[in-house]
């Protein structure tokens, strides 16, 4: 059943996945070609656009089968909610993590480095994308029923995390702080919406089922 839902999402979102992979390839190419990072260049814009387009893909996939929504089509299908979440994570792996992993490996290759020597660092990058983009993206998309709201919420979370980073004297690293922020978001999402079916808190769905 996980594969059935995953294939359905791939069929629906292939164009978005193709577009984000295009952004990623271009970004990897620009990264490999440049010597110094320049603000407000094509690369900077793509760096902003890429996570947002990933969030949009995740949002579209989640909104069709929102785990906590009893009106969603999947809710009456013979499927456990865990399978739905697993299918969405599988989509994230296919559409985001695998292309990102290949792109970062290619950047190293283009810089004349052997990517196998940096396997641990590459794996850590994957974990960062998972923690900073994928998991908060799923949590936020589950919280907000409207895609634009979900993207705005993600942006707000990112800005909040950025401001906290600037103003914090906690000595946390940037990645560490973002990881904490994303975990808070994920926890929030998990509390409110990801606990579906019998575990769903009554206040989220109105008495008439909406």
């Amino acid at each position, binding site marked *: *059943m996980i594969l*059935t839902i995953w294939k*359905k999402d791939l069929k*629906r979102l292939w164009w978005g996945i193709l577009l984000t992979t295009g952004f990623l390839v271009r970004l990897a190419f620009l990264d490999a070609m440049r010597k110094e990072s320049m603000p407000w260049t094509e690369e900077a814009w793509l760096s902003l656009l890429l996570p947002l387009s990933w969030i949009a893909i995740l949002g579209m996939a989640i909104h*069709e089968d929102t785990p906590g*929504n*009893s*009106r*969603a*089509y999947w*809710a*009456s*299908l*013979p*499927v*456990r909610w865990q399978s739905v979440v697993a299918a969405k994570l599988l989509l994230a792996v296919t559409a985001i993590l695998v292309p990102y992993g290949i792109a970062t490996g290619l950047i190293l290759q283009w810089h004349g480095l052997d990517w196998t020597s940096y396997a641990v660092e590459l794996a850590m990058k994957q974990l960062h994308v998972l923690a900073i983009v994928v998991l908060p993206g799923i949590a936020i998309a589950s919280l907000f029923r409207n895609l634009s709201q979900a993207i705005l919420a993600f942006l707000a979370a990112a800005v909040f995390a950025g401001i906290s980073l600037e103003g914090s004297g906690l000595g946390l690293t940037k990645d560490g702080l973002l990881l904490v922020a994303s975990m808070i978001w994920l926890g929030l999402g998990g509390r409110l919406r990801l606990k579906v*079916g*019998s*575990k*769903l808190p*009554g*206040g989220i*769905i*109105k*008495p*008439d*089922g*909406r």
Partner: protein
Amino acid sequence: MIRTFDLTKRFGKTMALDRVNLDLPANSIFALAGPNGAGKSTLLHLLLNHFRSDGGQSEIAGVDSRKLSPKDLQKIGYVAESRHLPEWMQVAEFFRYTSQFYPNWQPDQLRDLIGLFRLPMEAKVSSLSRGKRMQVALAATLAYRPQVLLLDEPFQGLDVLVRDQVIESIVERSAESTVLLASHDLAEIESFATHFSYLSEGRLKFSGDICQLQSEFREVEVVLREAVEIEVPGHWMNYSIQGEYVRFTDSKYAGTDAIRERFQGVADITVRNLPLRAIFVEMAREGQKS
């Protein structure tokens, strides 16, 4: 097939269902009526384990709702007007997608339903009218021959012809399924339901077969020789008296003699049968009063 025992559900301070007891006989078409917010949809959601109950329990297809597994859900069909279908899919694609979840999927059955409903297989779900969507959802559900069929407002927004088709397909399959149907549309329900229950403010006011209901409910008009105050029994609903003229709905009608015994000096009694819709209205009025 479907049973509830003191089933209770609260949403904050609102009591959505208050100790509801139901027992649906196998192969019955059981209509669940009641005003908006009476708890009809909540009851269906509890049966499907979409919500956790706050008290009591429910069984569907012989299984405790809280323990429904995907295998059990393969025997249950659920069609609701409010259900979100995948809008971007073509109708044919939607059937292909749904069929993968049901080992008992029967293409011949689906073909018949596609013919009966004249479904446009190449059209996108998003382009379908409300009636066609309902037919698509119903076809996708009946195609796996569920043992239990839950329908939430299936006639809402359907034209007369489409309603007839939907009813026809439900009745045809009722020999092998137990149907629980939540609807306001009493005129339609009356024509084919075998059992009826009435929910008001989360409480079950009546539950039984339709023949029994119709034999028990009578509209009664009494003309007295002189005005008199009496103690009104609980089963006389919407009792009103104006001078010598009395009107009420008897929900446990047992003949005119029982009515005569209550009054002294009855000049005339008129008793009328009530259609289901009128019974529903009387119940709703009584509910509002109480």
